[in-house]
């Protein structure tokens, strides 16, 4: 293998400009590949980590679940805990900046909220406190201790105001569970800021089931229980709600994969052409190599490594660029709720596989040509 390296280097060095251009375009293609497949991976990871014990219960028509319904659900079989939730949504500062705080009730019903016991306890002292993830804090330009308002027309307050005042208790690390970032407030603040008539109404319930395998059945049972009541429900395991939501706007997975493939296809053509041309230009060299005893496989391997080396380097540079770009994507495109692309081992593996496939495919046609090389004719200058 090592004896090939000087030969490969010589071939690449001789056409420096072409090698650099190829390297750059492979880099660009893999920057695209990394960010696209990374976005896809981030969405898939968010679905993988979903707590399958959480069943979300909402009102089928309108938004007026009552506390009493929560108690009934808690008494049903397979239900371990029930907790209420609500959203304060509106805008922060600029009407274009949609903002919401998810108001959460208790740790037992919210296993999907990444807060420690001490953090849950902080709400007893500061009812209007919120915990933001770094991503959300960056989007809103807030830090620990800041006080801010969310203007909401849809969640009426008892005082008749539209502004919900919050204080940032802490800025926490993002978790894969909440790929778009998170902002959690206290349900007690939500409850007691609304008019007495509204206080018994929850936005939705989170039922935590004992046996996640029967979560679907529990959801069906909850809906059946309230089917003929004044407030019919619609229940679904959180994992289903998430996968529906992921495709509600754009089927991100489908789009990102397609774009990544188009980029690879372009680069495949380019490297294949580059390899073919380089072989064509150096037929006499290969004839010499074959004369001095290189096998067909040896010569093909040489061409393969020549195609692979810049592609591999370009892919590595591209993935590094993708990693650097990824950190900025949520901030560059707020509002779309895109997660930070996650360059998982699987994505890097796919990139590696793509590079090797790229080099292999680029070598197929030149290899056939090399195999049928008329060595005598070429050395005699007749071909």
């Amino acid at each position, binding site marked *: 293998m090592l004896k090939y390296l000087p030969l490969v280097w010589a071939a690449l060095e001789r056409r420096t400009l072409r090698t650099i251009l190829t390297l750059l375009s492979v880099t*660009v293609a893999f920057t*695209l590949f990394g960010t696209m497949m990374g976005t896809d991976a981030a969405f898939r990871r968010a679905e993988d980590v979903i707590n399958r014990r959480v069943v979300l219960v909402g009102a*089928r*028509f309108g938004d007026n679940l009552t506390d009493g319904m929560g108690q009934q659900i808690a008494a049903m079989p397979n239900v371990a805990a029930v907790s209420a939730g609500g959203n304060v949504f509106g805008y922060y500062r600029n*009407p274009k900046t949609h903002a919401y705080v998810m108001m959460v009730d208790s740790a037992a019903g919210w296993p999907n909220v990444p807060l420690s016991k001490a953090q849950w306890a902080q709400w007893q002292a500061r009812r209007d406190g919120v915990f933001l993830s770094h991503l959300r804090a960056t989007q809103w330009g807030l830090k620990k201790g800041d006080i801010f308002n969310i203007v909401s*027309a849809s969640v009426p307050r008892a005082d008749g105001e*539209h502004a919900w005042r919050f204080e940032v208790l802490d800025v926490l690390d993002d978790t894969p569970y909440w790929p778009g970032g998170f902002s959690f407030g206290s349900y007690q603040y939500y409850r007691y800021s609304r008019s007495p008539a509204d206080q018994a109404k929850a936005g939705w319930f989170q039922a935590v089931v004992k046996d996640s395998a029967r979560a679907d059945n529990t959801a069906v049972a909850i809906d059946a229980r309230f089917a003929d009541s004044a407030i019919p429900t619609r229940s679904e395991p959180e994992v289903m709600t998430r*996968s529906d939501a992921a495709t509600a706007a754009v089927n991100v997975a489908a789009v990102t994969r397609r774009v990544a493939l188009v980029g690879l296809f*372009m680069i495949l053509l380019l490297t294949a052409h580059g390899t073919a*041309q380089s072989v064509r230009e150096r037929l006499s060299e290969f004839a010499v190599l074959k004369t001095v005893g290189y096998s067909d496989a040896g010569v093909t391997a040489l061409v393969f490594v020549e195609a692979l080396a810049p592609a591999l380097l370009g892919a590595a540079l591209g993935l590094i660029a993708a990693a650097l770009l990824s950190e900025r994507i949520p901030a560059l495109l707020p509002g779309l709720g895109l997660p930070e692309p996650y360059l998982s081992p699987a994505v890097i593996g796919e990139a590696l596989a793509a590079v090797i496939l790229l080099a292999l495919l680029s070598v197929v046609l030149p290899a056939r040509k090399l195999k049928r090389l008329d060595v005598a004719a070429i050395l005699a200058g007749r071909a």
Partner: protein
Amino acid sequence: MIFLRSCLAAAWLNLMSLKKRLWASLVVVVGVACVVAVLLSMLSVTSSLRHAWQRAGSPDRAIILPTGSQGEGDGAISPAQAAIIKDAPGIARDAKGRAIADPEILMGLDVRRHDTGGYGYILMRSFGPTAMALRPEFRIVAGRMYRPGKREMVVGAEAPGQFQNVGLGDKVEMPDGPWPVVGVFRTNDDVVQSELVADTDMLRAVMRHPAYSSVIVRLAGADGLAVLKRAITTNPALQVTAERQSDYYNRRSAEFSDMNDKLSYGVSLLLGLGALLAAVNILYSAVAIRRVEIATLRALGFGAFPVAFAVAVEGLLLSLTGGVIGAAIAYHLFDGVQDIWYNNAFRLAVSPALIALGLVWALLIGLLGGVLPAIHAARFPIAEGLRAT
């Protein structure tokens, strides 16, 4: 004149030799085609959706929303407030002297989507007694209009393609039982065309919805909006804002389209950069292959510029061909295809304006890709080129 002729002659000679470099040329063509196809398909989603939103707004109408509300369905207007608004000046009146203004309800209904089989929200809107005067673009294209006071609804023509069981003759589950869909309507291909519509009073009764989402009014005359605004914003009994309906839909559509445009351009820019580098690469090797030919031309007396011009023209023509192919692919795959964004079903359009944009991108790639190789060709030492034979 001679200069021009030599430019054209050099370009012609160059293009004649393209056949020999067919595969290399195809790399540029396919690369640019990929870029333009991706650009147009991504942009067509945003622009078609934006147009569907914008078509829903009319400058002759105003939308009145509760203060602080972002849009319809967010916040509430009470029946008492709605009555005060309908009496305000600035609103057009019909032959009987009634204000052409209706409070409307907009709400989400759970239905299953065709594509995922999962739940999605279809929007249900309610119309009042002056709806036909208010919305002249509304017409029934199949079945009939719902009868006021009946448990019936009509469906927008785009909705059944995306949502299950909302077609003509289907029954939609409502709190008091299933309501039949008795007709299909069109509204100028706007976003309303993917909604369900029923009678406001019936919907309020069955949903136990005490409040309205908005009041839509037809404006009287050119200064109707100003008069209306003055009347309702100075009335202490109302906490509402009035906005020209066309402005409202422009504003709302910008909320998603600005970001989506950024994303589409970002992705296409990266892809375009890849294609640009590929084009530079290919054109450089084209110059290398033709070095004898180029040197011969120069020796025959062709100037440096015509030779460079020929290379640039090659780059432009190849990428333009790619652009046309890419636009054709995007048009063939996506034009007229139905798409969905949350609860808005709409038709994709790969419009002439978009295609023109795609071709501009193609030309830019060709132009930028050709510059360096063209300069390289022009500065090629003649003697060295001739010796290469």
